[in-house]
């Protein structure tokens, strides 16, 4: 099940990176307030963001352990993500409140804008590559098989001797660490972070990406993220503004997003790319006749 509070993990990573690199809040005329305010080097802060992301992921995961119906769980997750944004927004001296934290340092700030952006893309691409390789360890092979089994039926998995709690928290921690890193990279690029940047609707956009791409397919998810994020949401910016109707273009973007989600769930719930399962081949074995045994091919 997709985690509707995932955006909180991204936010946690972003805030962690921000307060660990930005320096004390008395700087810059003291116009913003936040805790910590260290000036750690980039990589240390990213690692810390991963750790905090993992921690927050596990915390969210713990609430998900309670056996309630999945739509209720979805609701709890949505509420958690809205609540987290509200609480952070209402506490101005904790993480900058509603205005958020700005002037977060960029690791390439001494390069020019364009070179810096390219350097950043290169770095993010590298991070993605590493992330993909780590992810493959989890989604491919026997580990992926076990996780998929748990996703299909937790009770049956527990009956098979799997510690559902441990595996769930493990996946939450790994997912959380990923979210934390992506939050850190994002905030280092943007330079600022505020509750408005992680409203629950952003979760919907992430979810649409996953649904369109195909939930069980790493490549599909990546592709979906590109299609949705870049083409749709950024593409809307290139449309001519309809002057007489403020907000119409923007509204169209959102409607397309919503309809796309519904349309895919309706017509092609598996997404553009299906989940693929490995095929195993039977070794040649002269004694076995594959189709002759008990229970073969009969309808029960």
């Amino acid at each position: 099940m997709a985690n509707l509070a995932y955006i909180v993990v991204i936010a946690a990573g972003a805030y962690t990176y921000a307060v660990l690199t930005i320096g004390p809040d008395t700087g810059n005329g003291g116009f913003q307030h936040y805790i910590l305010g260290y000036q750690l080097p980039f990589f240390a802060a990213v690692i810390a963001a991963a750790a905090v992301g993992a921690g927050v992921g596990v915390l969210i995961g713990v609430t998900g352990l309670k056996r309630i119906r999945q739509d209720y769980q979805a609701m709890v997750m949505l509420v958690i993500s809205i609540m987290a944004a509200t609480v952070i927004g209402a506490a101005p001296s904790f993480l900058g409140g509603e205005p958020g934290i700005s002037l977060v340092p960029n690791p390439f700030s001494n390069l020019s804008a364009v070179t810096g952006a390219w350097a950043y893309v290169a770095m993010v691409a590298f991070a993605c590559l590493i992330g993909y390789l780590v992810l493959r360890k989890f989604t491919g092979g026997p580990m992926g098989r076990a996780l998929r089994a748990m996703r299909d039926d937790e009770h049956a998995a527990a009956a098979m001797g799997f510690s559902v709690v441990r595996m769930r928290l493990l996946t939450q921690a790994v997912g959380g660490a990923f979210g934390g890193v992506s939050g850190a990279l994002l905030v280092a690029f943007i330079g600022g972070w505020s509750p408005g940047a992680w409203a629950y609707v952003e979760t919907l956009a992430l979810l649409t990406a996953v649904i369109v791409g195909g939930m069980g397919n790493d490549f599909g998810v990546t592709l979906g993220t590109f299609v949705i994020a870049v083409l749709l949401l950024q593409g809307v910016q290139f449309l001519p503004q309809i002057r007489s109707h403020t907000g119409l273009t923007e509204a169209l973007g959102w409607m397309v997003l919503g309809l796309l989600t519904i349309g895919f769930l309706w017509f092609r719930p598996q997404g553009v790319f299906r989940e693929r399962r490995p095929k195993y081949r039977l070794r040649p074995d002269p004694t076995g006749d594959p189709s002759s045994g008990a229970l073969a091919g009969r309808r029960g």
Partner: protein
Amino acid sequence: MHLLVQSIGFGVAAGAVLSLGAVGFTLQFGISNVLNIAYGALMSIGAFLGLFMLGLGLNIWVAMVLGGLAVGACSVLLNRGLITPLVRKGMQPFGLVIVSVSAGIVLEYVIVAVAGPATQSYGNLSGATLNFLGWTLTTAQVVIFGIAVLLMVGLHLLLTRTQLGRAMRATSSNRTLARSCGIATSRISDIAWFMSGTFCGMAGIALAITIESFDFTLGSIFLIPMIAAAVLGGVGQPYGAMIGGLVVGVVSSVSSAYWDPAYQSVVAFGIIIVMLLVRPRGLFGSSSATRKLLA
């Protein structure tokens, strides 16, 4: 002390609107078993329909009834056109939540496309201010409270005294069993969606009257306290939702008087999470409703 009494009064006034919305929400959930997040958007539609009808020169209370019925029709359409077909396709509850979230967003931006994103207002309809029991309420708030009470009593009579009500309760507690007893559950479901939509639309217009100023996000902002009320009272329990609405209203009002008002909405969030995780049946829910909730 005076502040406490007063804020309880505000809470009751806000709670009446909340109850109205929460009852509709919980009624539909109880019978069709679908968590409808698009409910908030339907509420906004109700508020904008009210605005449209005020523009036509209708009386606000007439507009409230008509708007409610119109939203009821929208609600049935949503069920027939989207939810039921997907349920038939075997979509899981989690998928349905995503669908209703998406549908809600689409509906909201349909409002933006038609009416624009600007802030709207019915104008000052609150009437004279009334003082009693140390409470300060406007005439409109009292009328809305009255309407809410009337609707609740009406719903109570419908559920307990009529054949339809019995059929609805039967469907709510066990759909399969009800169907095997010859109850046309899909028709009951339609009726539930319609009634839910009607409550929703009326709550939207009532909210727009009391809040004075609103935009297309009206309903989705209000959805969280409404769900909190429904969850507090036990999901699927109309009576629970009535009480839940009042409790959530009073608690958030009192909390914002004595605590940082910025945290006002956090109270509602807290109620939802604590209730669902600690006592999912709600304060008034039966254990059969609990079994529905548990996976």
